[in-house]
């Protein structure tokens, strides 16, 4: 049990694993989408494609937008697993960017994969912002206030 001054690193490791899992899922999703498109049919000289191919291509290409947040997620996951607690901000930014992208894609092309990503990001955001997790990071970010007369 973690008492005051004895901070539990369990949530930190758990977040690290969840973030790593998210990156793996995104990579798997990318591979799956990439394989769905018959790239041989796409002739760079001919821009016009049939509707379903066109949609598949757009959805696959749109997944490339998730590469930067996935990289940040991977970095923060490694940070967490190596117990670098400052990775919280990186993780939060990556979840925010991913969710923002999902919302934007939802208003434009509505690819099927935005829904699972959205659901995962919501859960991650709630977990990252939960009181127990924030307290772990707060302990480091905010030093206790100095009482007059106490040494620095």
């Amino acid at each position, binding site marked *: 049990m973690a008492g005051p001054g004895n901070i539990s690193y369990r949530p930190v490791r758990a977040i690290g694993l969840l973030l790593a899992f998210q990156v793996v899922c995104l990579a798997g999703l990318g591979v799956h989408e990439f394989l769905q498109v018959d790239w041989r049919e796409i002739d760079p000289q001919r821009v016009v494609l049939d509707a379903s191919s066109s949609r598949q291509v757009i959805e696959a290409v749109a997944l490339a937008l998730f590469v930067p947040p996935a990289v940040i997620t991977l970095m923060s996951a490694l940070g967490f697993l190596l117990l670098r607690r400052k990775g919280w901000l990186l993780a939060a930014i990556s979840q925010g960017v991913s969710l923002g992208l999902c*919302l934007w894609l939802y208003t434009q092309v509505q690819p099927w994969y935005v829904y699972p990503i959205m659901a995962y*990001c919501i859960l991650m*955001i709630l977990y990252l*912002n939960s009181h127990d997790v924030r307290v772990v990071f707060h302990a480091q970010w905010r030093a206790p206030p100095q009482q007059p007369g106490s040494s620095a």
Partner: protein
Amino acid sequence: MSAAASPEALLRRFEPVVRSTKGDKFFPMDVEPYVRACSLWVQRPGEEAICVAPRGKLDLDRLAQQPLDEVGAVHFLKFTDPRDLAPPGSRIRVFGRRAARGLKESREAFRAGRGRLARVGYFSRFVDALYSITLLARGRVPGEAAAAASVSYERIMAEEGARYRYHGRVTRQDGWVVLQYWLFYPFNDWRSGFFGANDHEADWEKIIVYLSESETTGEVRPEWVAYAAHNYTGDNLRRRWDDPEVEKVGEHPVIYVGAGSHASYYAPGEYLTELNLPLPRTLARAANAVRSFWKERMGQYAGEDEEGPGYLHIPFVDYARGDGLSIGAGGDREWDPPRLMLDPPPRWVSGYRGLWGLYARDPFEGEDAPAGPMYNRDKSVNRAWYDPVGWAGLDKVSPPDEALDAALARHADLEARCAALRTEISEKSRRLKRLGVEVAAMRGRSHLDAPYEEGARHLAELSGELDRLRARLATDEAVSRSLEEYAGRLRAGERDPARAHISRAHRPASEAELRVSRVAEAWAAASVSLMLISFVAIAIFEREHLISMLVLSIALFAFVEAGFRGRLVNLVSSVNIGLAVVAALILLYEFFWPLVVTAVLGVGLYVLWDNLRELGR
């Protein structure tokens, strides 16, 4: 010196040293010449204000009469009339030029310094700009008033001789001898002179020194001091006399006065002061409900805002640098003998319930002049006047000579209560045992079912009552032991920590905060305007992607601002929560029935798992 000494002697012995900020133009003065320089007006409901005593015809006696008093009437003084500055070629024109010159000198003397804008935040600067715009619609003290007041004040000082005076009152309350120093300033130019929240004619500030009195010798000893700052009350205003934060010259406490606002501080520096504008009641209630749900039901982090979400906080900087004129012991000027306000209070204090300067009809009251020392603006009696001990939260503290007696008396009370509780517990315990035997004897006898059930119910009630009594006794015994130890410490001359009562002290900005970079300050100065310009540019050139571009630009500005102010974590967290709420609503809209089915299946599986686990034990 004993408490039997004259009130004036007592006041003079502990009179404060006032250290103002360079550029401040108004200093504590006597009310009499001020009142003589004023006209008295009455504003009756639904009517134009009428002058009941013109300038030159008013004095403290006439003021106390408060003529034409009736329900809803607001009496107020007018120290300056900036309309007098308008006619060209007149002597008043010369007066206007002098006023403008005086204001320029003041502004040259005062430099806000770097980091002022950066310290108060982007959202606050935006609200501050809106707040300033609303001043045009709200009643406010006219812009020229500060300059005109400055000239009038200088004229009074020239005619009367440069006099600096406070208004003193000595009272006794709850074993304390209370010395009240009421400082009267002819004008508050915080907004126009020092980038603050408001301007108003007249300003009453107060410093209170609390003395204990020896029962044997009658000697008095300073124990506590409280400096008024804005409308704050309670423990945080108060410092113990031996607190290192209370600077003293001999026996005179030193006050650092906020430039323009005249709020009093213990240490020199620049203070971030929040103006708390209450949200409309419905909105505040909704905000509270959301916060409570988010924090308690969802277990989410909801920040550390002590005031709660019912207020809109607009921060301003209060400059109390102490590098200006110093009045009092060892200062640039000496105090003149005080004007006394001993009980029964003089008629000008108790008889005049109106405002001591212009009534600007400001709904937030920030631009209206204050009432006198005895009253609030709504004519109710001021707490600092009728309960100066409670005003600073000292009503729960006994004077040192009485503290031991109070602790011993409370200990005796508790011991008596413990004895009574022990007797009651013993008696009820005996009764419980007898009742237990009686109930056991009735068990399994069908003809005694009804009395058995009645007896069992009584048994449970008595057992519960006994449990509560024992818990109370255990607590009382612990408190009693604690009181005994505390009395022992008091007997040995030990005192509580000097700052144990302070939960949130005002602190000046640190060196690090004052060293905000030039880039951050430039950003802070330009960001609001830049954002508005970018909105216009998007509206003109990017109409096709209006919403996306607006969202992107706001996000960019907010991100840069939060980075400069070290609030990136809060910003990212808030944005994420907003996005999560929108995304959750979309998922609910798209997959309502699948989600319902999943939830039901989830609950079913959980119940199954729980039951199987129980079976496996």
